[in-house]
């Protein structure tokens, strides 16, 4: 009985004090919090350093990187080396896992501090870095390790370009589906 209502008064005292306390709201578009060191923002590529090794494209779990490769003597050494003529990162699929950053042998793909990714449609989210735009809707189909022929085809296709890889992979799938249909029938 002596404590009747004390909890209510105590709680209301706290709320009354909070009325005049300093507010903790950070008014977002005007005041942005500084991102942390090693924070994973949007990806960007330094195309001058890229050696078109396609490792980022293969390791990406979401298949969000597509690279169109060609041979070119870019550094003036007299030898034609692999060169990424088209490079696209589809942010609508990227999950910021940072695997591509870890795997890159020349550290040319890295996170920026930019984290506000928004667009009116999905295609706008695909950011092009190369000289030639790459269609981001085509899945680059990284090598599947289980079956040798499929892996070879994908690797060879990647050498010719992402589009070619998809084109070669497509006919392989069709017979399998057809066989299943036959089984069902």
């Amino acid at each position, binding site marked *: 009985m002596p404590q009747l209502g004390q909890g*209510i008064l105590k709680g*209301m005292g706290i709320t009354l004090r909070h*009325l005049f306390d*300093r*507010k903790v*709201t950070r008014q977002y578009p005007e005041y942005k919090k500084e991102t942390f060191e090693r924070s994973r923002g949007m990806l960007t590529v330094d195309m001058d350093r890229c050696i078109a090794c396609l490792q980022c494209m293969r390791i990406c779990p979401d298949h969000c990187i597509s690279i169109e490769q060609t041979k070119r003597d870019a550094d003036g050494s007299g030898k034609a080396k692999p060169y990424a003529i088209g490079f696209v990162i589809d942010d609508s699929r990227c999950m910021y896992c940072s695997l591509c950053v870890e795997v890159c042998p020349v550290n040319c793909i890295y996170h920026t501090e930019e984290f506000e990714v928004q667009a009116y449609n999905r295609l706008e989210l695909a950011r092009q870095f190369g000289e030639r735009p790459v269609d981001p809707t085509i899945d680059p189909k990284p090598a599947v390790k289980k079956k040798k022929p499929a892996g070879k085809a994908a690797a060879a296709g990647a050498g010719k370009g992402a589009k070619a890889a998809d084109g070669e992979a497509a006919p392989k799938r069709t017979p399998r589906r057809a066989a299943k249909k036959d089984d069902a029938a």
Partner: protein
Amino acid sequence: MGTVLQYLDQEPFRFLLSVGAILFLVLNLAAVFTMAERKTSAYIQLRYGPNRVGPRGLLQPAADVFKLFSKENLSPSRADLWIFLGAPIAMFIPAALVWLVVPFAPNAVIADLNVAIVFFIAVTSIGALGLIMAGYGSRSTFSLLGAMRGAAQMISYEVPLILSLLGVIMLSGSLSLVDVVNAQGGGFWHWYFLPQLPMFIVFYIAGIAEARRVPFDLPEGESEIVGGFMVEYSGMTWGLIQAAEFASMGLISAITATLFLGGWQPPIEALDFGNFNWIWFGLKTALLVFTFQWIRWSLPRLRMDQLMDFGWKILVPICLIWLFVTAGLMLLFPSVF
């Protein structure tokens, strides 16, 4: 000018003007109170609240109303349409109507009824009807649950609400709100909240329950029955229910200020502003409305059995005891009271 005013003071025009003024007041009050509510809640929770629309967010209620008007008014296909659509009106009209008997300033009362307190009690209890209509007409489980809770709560809390008024009626010897205010003249020590302190607290608590506000918001029960009786409402019907709720919050505050805090009477006689005494009425009402919001954002909701226990086992006995104490004091010291 004088002749026009005299002409407008005649009966049909006087009534129409008053009703127009009351509707204007109540509807705007609802908008202002939503803004106050959001700001108070934000400041209590260490936020800023709405501050984008207009200077310091002051045009937010206008934007809200605009949004509500533009929304589609949906109703469940199996709803009892007339009851469903009538419920918001049945809730809003009583909340707006009682403002007719509230004295704003020395001569500013629209209808000086000699039974104003009875009128207040009678008309506010119609609000429960609107609640049941909303719950029944929606034909939805949560709506009906909310309505049942609301009916039980509002009928239970009507008892302490009425009992706590008896002390004031005994002291002032009148049922007219104007007489009650006049009897409290001459400084704040003459206001009825001092001799009637338990009654004042009981009336305010019962008023919170009548206005269905936290901690007595079981009919709504946002976190358990997602809005209770107004689950099926959308657009402006929902807006009208909200307006009714905020209007009844303002109404309970205004009636409390009138009965216990001296209405428009200034706290000391030196601060008497004559016809501008509505400032005092407004300040007292605003303080009570703020307390409503302050309580709302501080306390958790009661359980149903706790609610009933509190109403019948604590509030009603307090009222009855203090009724006898008041009667005894009036008998022993007739010169003071």
